[in-house]
């Protein structure tokens, strides 16, 4: 039976943190689980580093932080929330951004009667406050995955629940 020392435990904790496990409770659970696996399955003269690397790899599909993302999704299920794909999220942003301007312009058209004259300042404000941000959104939306660390193409976006907004880098962990 392998005996872990304090230095190795600190190393595991630091690694868990570095891999994106931010919740202390989750970190402690994983630390205990990993320690038990190492102590039960690693020979006394075994290679700690190699065994740890293999063990931690078996916990996730792509990244360890999937566990925390999955926990967030499960916790949000009983609360008011929206779980959106990247496309749905951008569509929502486009609608939220352009919606007020279209509404304003439509109201203007209907209230001013025939002629449909829209003053220049309305056009200018629409271009400055709606079209320019829309272009920025479009650029973000079309950015290739490798250049987009914020919202990768496979990301899920959780709105509401326990967090206002949370971008999760990939499909959440499954059994």
């Amino acid at each position, binding site marked *: 039976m392998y005996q872990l020392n*304090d230095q190795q*435990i*600190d190393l595991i904790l630091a690694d868990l943190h570095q891999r994106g496990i931010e*919740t202390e*409770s*989750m970190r*402690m*659970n*994983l*630390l*205990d*689980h990993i*320690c*038990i*696996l190492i102590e039960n399955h690693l020979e006394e003269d075994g290679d700690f580093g190699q065994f740890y690397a293999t063990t931690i790899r*078996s*916990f*996730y*599909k792509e990244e360890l932080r*999937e*566990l*925390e993302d*999955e*926990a967030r*999704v*499960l*916790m949000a*299920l*009983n609360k008011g929330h929206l779980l959106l794909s990247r496309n749905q999220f951008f569509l929502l942003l486009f609608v939220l951004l352009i919606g007020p301007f279209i509404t304003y312009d439509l109201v203007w058209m209907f209230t001013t009667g025939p002629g449909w004259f829209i003053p220049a300042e309305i056009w200018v404000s629409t271009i400055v406050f709606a079209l320019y941000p829309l272009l920025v959104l479009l650029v973000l939306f079309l950015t290739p995955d490798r250049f987009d660390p914020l919202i990768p193409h496979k990301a899920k976006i959780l709105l509401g629940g*326990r967090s206002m907004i949370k971008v999760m880098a990939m499909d959440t*962990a*499954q*059994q």
Partner: protein
Amino acid sequence: MTYSPELLKGTLKTIVLKLLTDNKKMYGYEITQKVKELTRDKIQITEGALYPTLHALEADGLVTTEVEYIGKRVRKYYSLSPTGKTATREKLKELTNFMDTMIALLEIKPKMA
């Protein structure tokens, strides 16, 4: 033979709650081992599924926790809260009902003992 993750996904909360009913308090690793033992390795709960589920159960108030310090490590024990006991009964009832429906739907004849 182990069962596919898709089959197990919807039942994990119920499995954990039932184990906590029978065993009073358990920690994560213990739960995975107990499931393996009871199912003769047919169901192997992964860490990636178990810990998010335990955290969600805790956030929903269905389980309570207590910690034990083992040197620099902390072991977190989970046990059912009063709400959790009620939820377990409801979930078991729902799952039993679901299994009966599936048996009828797929026309599966249960094996006689």
